[in-house]
């Protein structure tokens, strides 16, 4: 939304006698929070639908009592946040919440960061007027990471809400508690809302929604983050420390291109070992949702490194004679700039396969659209009501893109189209208005043609495109069913904002150039705006900063990657490097934002900065001295690291680092190739795709992430394949265990690429899909 549009949509409201501005159509609670006014609320989550479980957010709007979490502001509305009646309700609600709540605050993991405690004190509850026999509520381990203590649960339903509305797993739900019924006489004697809330509370408890003892979910742990009490905690964290002992270090998650805001929370390891250790990762859960890798994959640091002068000397020698530097996208912008400087000064070649593919794709996009960056960020996607996903395994590639896709369905009465050769059983469950297409590998152009046919203004199209638009044929080709017309017109009703998410499949597509052209045409002639998912952590930053090479031979230095001399943060190199949680610097995320990350754990060894300083004789003291030197002509800004903000304001505005500036140039004439349906791959196909929660060697190193390096297949396919298989590629073989991914569908198998030493990129070459022969061992 532009500034002018924002101002236009502002209305004025009165809260407790003072006038404030609020966005039109916003909930009263959010409007109050944006203006720094406190209204108590337990069950409401920003970005999710109101559950009305706690009823404590009662306010009086224009003389009528309403729940501020689900009543919207109107022009001139007069809101009173406290009246004697509301205070009486709130106090009764808090008394009810305190009934039978175990008095184990002393050991509870919430350790004072407890909303039940806070509101009990806020409303000065110093005596109890209600009672009911307690029900036996047992402690359960829902999964390898989730621990649920039903006794502590106040059934605010924040966990179920976030799981449904944000994450999309819907893995937990409220179920019957079997508690005794309330005394009917209370109905008249106690405050109305408190009674209604108690009545509901007494009947429900949270449980996995699949009816078993265990959740079948992506183990993101977002339910732990939102729990206002200590009912949900991570099994690893439980009873190990108090919240107040932990030092919060604001950082950016280093695992995928989402670059989420996180806090590393550290404390000395033990009484005998005073070195800092990360105990957990937390987030500003009202404004950002993490995935399992971000939340649980935090202990990937390079431990016990000392300055090894001999190794450093060898490293300098190696860099001097190096012809090639091979690196991954898990580096900061500053380091990328250093590598680029090395290239300029020493003439080495830079190899980064994932970023190179993305760089070429972005470059084409720039040529044909005239814009250096894609149009949408993922926050804007959340504001759209029709979202299309193409060329990405949404569930695995980028959890936040998936959350956005899901959130649109749940919050904006949205609809979606999901195009991917690998069938997915989870995506269709996000909403009723999702059409999925398991098209053939190689038919991505046909998808774009179909989208052009469906959404574009035909008059503006070039003839070559127009000729190819045969709706029925395209739908049939992509595997759509005969009812497509009817279902599409149904889901298109009342839709205004359209967004398209594209992913890594397209960057590694033999026809990538033509695909970019079609995307550009689609953007120009239809209301659809496009967002791209950078393949790995800082691929966008690397693609913008570095001048990458396609192929290179000679003496190679591998930075967290294969090479003749390994400079590695994984503890297996010739010279140690700091891991992302031991570094400060900036990362460029898929929201086109440059975000700062800070040092959580001590590192005493050499960094890339030391090497570059030694090699080039540059008088910089720290890595972050390079932050203001990031290339302005690529959209970066010349801002010192220390003046970069890292947080959110109360209205949800993201104040983290800065947004990249879009640089426009003249667009080229578009000449589209004709789509050839024969390029589709047939036979056994392997797809380069990581399991959920695995992104790189670093997630793999974390002790709470145990998704294996194996061949993933749908249950049916896995059964047919057997236990262990050899996958034969054109350029080599790979022996892998077969694992079932219950959410996969169809015959395509997934081969992970998170272990850099397996050199999976080499096996797959320039494409994300490869024809393979799979045989059982």
């Amino acid at each position: 939304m532009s500034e002018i549009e924002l101002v236009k949509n502002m209305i004025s409201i009165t809260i407790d006698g003072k006038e404030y501005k609020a966005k039109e159509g916003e909930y009263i609670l959010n409007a109050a929070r944006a203006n720094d006014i406190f209204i108590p609320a337990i069950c409401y989550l920003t970005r999710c639908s109101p559950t009305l479980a706690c009823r404590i957010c009662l306010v009086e709007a224009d003389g009528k009592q309403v729940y501020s979490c689900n009543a919207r502001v109107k022009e001139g509305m007069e809101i009173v946040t406290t009246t004697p009646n509301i205070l009486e309700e709130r106090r009764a609600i808090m008394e009810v919440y305190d009934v039978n709540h175990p008095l184990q605050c002393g050991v509870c993991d919430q350790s004072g960061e407890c909303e039940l405690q806070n509101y009990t004190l806020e409303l000065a509850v110093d005596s109890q007027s209600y009672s009911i026999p307690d029900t036996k509520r047992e402690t359960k381990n829902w999964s390898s990471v989730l621990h649920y203590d039903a006794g502590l649960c106040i059934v605010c339903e924040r966990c179920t809400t976030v799981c449904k509305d944000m994450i999309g797993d819907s893995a937990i739900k409220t179920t019957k508690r079997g508690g005794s019924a309330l005394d009917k006489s209370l109905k008249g004697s106690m405050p109305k809302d408190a009674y209604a809330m108690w009545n509901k509370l007494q009947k429900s408890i949270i449980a996995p929604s699949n009816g078993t003892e265990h959740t079948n979910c992506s183990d993101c742990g977002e339910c732990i983050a939102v729990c206002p009490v200590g009912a949900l905690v991570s099994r690893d964290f439980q009873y190990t420390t108090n919240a107040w002992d932990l030092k919060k270090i604001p950082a950016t998650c280093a695992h995928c291109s989402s670059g989420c805001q996180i806090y590393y929370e550290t404390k000395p390891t033990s009484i005998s070992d005073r070195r800092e250790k990360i105990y957990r990762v937390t987030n500003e859960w009202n404004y950002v949702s993490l995935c399992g890798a971000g939340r649980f994959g935090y202990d990937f640091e390079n431990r016990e490194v000392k300055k090894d002068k001999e190794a450093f000397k060898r490293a300098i020698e190696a860099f001097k004679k190096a012809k090639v530097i091979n690196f991954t996208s898990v580096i900061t912008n500053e380091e990328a700039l250093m590598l680029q400087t090395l290239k300029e000064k020493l003439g080495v070649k830079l190899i980064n396969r994932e970023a190179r593919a993305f760089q070429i794709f972005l470059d084409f996009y720039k040529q044909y659209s005239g814009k250096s960056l894609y149009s949408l960020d993922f926050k804007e996607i959340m504001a759209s009501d029709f979202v299309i996903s193409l060329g990405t395994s949404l569930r695995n590639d980028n959890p936040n893109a998936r959350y956005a896709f899901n959130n649109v369905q749940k919050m904006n009465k949205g609809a979606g189209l999901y195009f991917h050769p690998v069938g997915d059983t989870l995506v269709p469950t996000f909403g009723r208005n999702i059409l999925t297409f398991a098209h053939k590998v190689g038919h991505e152009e046909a998808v774009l043609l179909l989208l052009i046919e469906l959404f574009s203004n035909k008059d503006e199209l070039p003839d070559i495109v127009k000729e190819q638009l045969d709706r029925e044929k395209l739908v049939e080709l992509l595997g759509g069913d005969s009812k497509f017309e009817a279902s599409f017109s149904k889901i298109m009703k009342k839709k205004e904002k359209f967004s398209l998410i594209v992913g890594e499949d397209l960057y590694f597509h033999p026809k990538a150039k033509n695909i970019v052209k079609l995307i550009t045409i689609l953007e120009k002639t239809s209301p659809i705006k496009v967002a791209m998912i950078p393949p790995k952590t800082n691929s966008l930053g690397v693609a913008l900063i570095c001048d990458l090479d396609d192929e290179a031979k000679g003496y190679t230095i591998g930075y967290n990657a294969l090479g003749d001399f390994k400079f590695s943060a994984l503890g297996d190199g010739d010279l140690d490097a700091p891991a992302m949680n031991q570094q400060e610097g900036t990362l460029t995320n898929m929201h086109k934002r440059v975000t700062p990350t800070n040092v959580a754990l001590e590192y005493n060894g050499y960094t890339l900065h030391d090497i570059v300083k030694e090699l080039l004789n540059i008088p910089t003291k720290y890595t972050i001295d390079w932050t203001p030197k990031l290339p302005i002509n690529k959209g970066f800004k010349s801002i010192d690291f220390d003046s970069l903000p890292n947080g959110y304001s109360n209205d949800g505005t993201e104040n983290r680092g800065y947004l990249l500036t879009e640089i426009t140039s003249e667009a080229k004439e578009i000449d589209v190739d004709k789509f050839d349906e024969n390029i589709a791959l047939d036979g056994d196909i392997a797809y380069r795709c990581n399991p959920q929660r695995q992104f790189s060697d670093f997630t793999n190193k974390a002790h709470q992430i145990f998704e294996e390096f194996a061949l993933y297949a749908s249950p049916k396919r896995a059964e047919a394949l057997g236990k262990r298989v050899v996958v034969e590629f054109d350029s080599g073989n790979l022996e892998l265990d077969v694992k079932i991914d219950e959410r996969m569908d169809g015959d395509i198998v997934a081969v992970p690429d998170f272990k850099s030493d397996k050199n999976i990129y080499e096996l797959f070459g320039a494409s994300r899909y490869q024809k393979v022969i799979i045989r059982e061992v």
Partner: protein
Amino acid sequence: MGLEKFKDRNIGTQNYKKLDLTHPPKSGWDRFKQVVSRTFKPELCIGLWVTLREMINALFRGKMHTTQYPLEKLPISPRYRAIHEMLRLLESGHYRCIGCGLCEKICISNCISMETRYDENQRKEVSEYTINFGRCIFCGYCAEVCPELAIVHGGRYETASEQRASFSLFEDMLTPIDKLNLQKEYQGFGAISPNADDNIKKTPLAY
């Protein structure tokens, strides 16, 4: 010795006796007389006699007043703040500490640290606990803040040792299980006040 004397802080009602003091000499003659009388009176012998009498009493009549430290020790106030003790529950013998970490938090010289974990019985277990007595200033905040009356100050004031470590672990401070019957409640800050019962508001119970 009982606690009565310590509990009696009512200094105001004690009976003071006024001594019948002779007046100081006024004239030079008076002063001369005082010098003469003091010089020739056998007052020195009175003093020597007192010493001799006490010596005889002590040596031969068993009226020794010297405390034979370290063989003998004087009782100290129950509110005295010496080396910490970790108390046990009288009923079960289990240690009282729940691992809440408040003592660690409140400690102004930062000398308490602890490790806790999730144990087999689904409880929070204190796996390590230590006080750095090189830093401890015996302020008593830990005992005051402890919600379980688990960490208290004891009367062990002799803190000379080859190693400070010999005082500082959980097991060193914990009441030995065979001496549970001798465990005494601490009376200092943090102890339950005598009128605690009156201050409690009762929670209604449904059963």
